[in-house]
């Protein structure tokens, strides 16, 4: 069943942890059904922003609106899923029960329907054989796919991905990229992807944003990003490796 995709508006968001400012005046919009990729170096504030969008944390200042509703108000009205970087699967439950947890707890369907839905979602991600395995028995790539499957069972209108291809080999990264792109077509979901992975961003994004030091440095289409003359964008998209003049020494 396709639900309507939702829009996301981030308006002048600030967030600090103690004295350290992590997000500084972040503003952008994501249109319904769009795949928006947030890129940037480690520590730029991407994952913190994702946590603020889904309501696991709150901005110090500014607003985050999902379909025009404040994140707090939207809970229960808009279904949002988050694919965690670590997978964050419940270790005490097997793969099937991890996926069945949401519909069971919210009593969305009968037991037979939940079973059918879970197995269908697992088959979408080629995970049927892993249904009765525990998370500790899965490889990193399988854990990521199970995490995506768990989010899909929720039939989300907004799907957030935190580094979906980190720690994966290139083939598995390509598979995950294909999954993200396919889902947009199949379930009409708005997606915000946080990633370092340039090839993932270029392959799936409608628009890409580059975050740096807690600020949005640039937002544009993947093509324009690749063609950009901006030093920071060029350095991030195509860092040159020069062992004779290592950049960590230059910086220090």
């Amino acid at each position, binding site marked *: 069943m396709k639900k309507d995709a939702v829009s996301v508006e981030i308006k002048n968001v600030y967030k600090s942890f103690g004295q350290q400012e992590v997000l500084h005046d972040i503003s952008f919009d994501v249109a319904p059904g769009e795949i928006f990729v947030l890129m940037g170096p480690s520590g730029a504030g991407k994952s913190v922003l994702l946590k603020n969008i889904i309501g696991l944390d709150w901005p110090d200042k500014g607003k985050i609106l999902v379909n025009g509703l404040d994140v707090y108000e939207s809970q229960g009205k808009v279904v949002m899923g*988050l694919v965690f970087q670590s997978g*964050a699967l419940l270790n005490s439950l097997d793969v099937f029960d991890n996926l069945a947890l*949401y519909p069971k707890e919210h009593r969305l369907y009968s037991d037979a329907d939940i079973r059918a839905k879970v197995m269908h979602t697992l088959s979408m991600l080629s995970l049927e054989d892993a249904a009765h395995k525990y998370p500790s028995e899965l490889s990193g790539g399988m854990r990521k796919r199970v995490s995506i499957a768990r989010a899909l069972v929720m039939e989300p209108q907004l799907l957030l991905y935190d580094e979906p291809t980190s720690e994966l080999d290139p083939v598995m990264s390509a598979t995950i990229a294909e999954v993200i792109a396919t889902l947009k077509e199949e379930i009409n979901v708005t997606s915000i992807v946080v990633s370092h992975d340039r090839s993932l961003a270029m392959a799936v994004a409608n628009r890409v944003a580059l975050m740096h030091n807690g600020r949005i440095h640039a937002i544009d289409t993947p093509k324009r990003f690749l063609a950009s003359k901006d030093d920071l964008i060029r350095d991030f998209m195509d860092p040159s490796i020069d062992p004779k003049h290592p950049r960590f020494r230059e910086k220090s």
Partner: protein
Amino acid sequence: MLANILDEFGSALMLLWRSICHLPYLPRQFARFFDNAYHIGYTTLPIVGILSAFIGAVLALQAGYSIGKVPGAQNYLGSIVGLSMCRELGPVMTAFLLAGRVGSAITAELASMTVYQEIDALKTMNISPERLLVMPRLVAIAVMMPVLTIFSIVIGWYGGMIVVKYVSFIALDPQIYWRSLKDFVDTASLTDGLLKAEVFGIAVTLICCNVGLRTKGGPREIGFAVTKGVVISMIFVLLLDYFVTKILI
């Protein structure tokens, strides 16, 4: 320091309140309740039995030795062991054992789930951790704590009886022991002991759940959380013991 204590205390009370609000969902969490009741209750019985038998035995031994010089005083050993186990040692030692064995496991599990973002995952699915993880444990402890305490008291009584019968410098007829015990241990003593046990059990579970769910950082903090949960639980059991006793007397 004071702010931290108040913060923890307030957070534990909020956790209790949120868990109580989820009580109507208990029938849907019956499998989790049953699983917790089994682990908290059934698997703890052997260690409660061993501990209580020796506490009753040592109590009878010490009391028998101390009052042995007073003629006829040993006839009251049954009442000493009976009342001590019933009103004080049964509930307190069961609560201590619960803190060490079950409380530590609860804190470790919830702290690990917090550190590894499993709790965050539940929140993103709009599933309350209190409903899934705390409420079934609190109900399980509320059901199992009286069972464990009665078991502890009875085993303690039998431990005392074995000592008064077989230790040569006491050598009291078990019938005299049981008669003295029956004369002094009334229904009020038993209900007071069970009430204390119930309060201790809920406090230990609540504290350990709260500490586990508030863990921040990495794997190192899981170990710290377990120690913190057990230590705070034990201190709280002793504090509550004084105040509940004061109210009941």
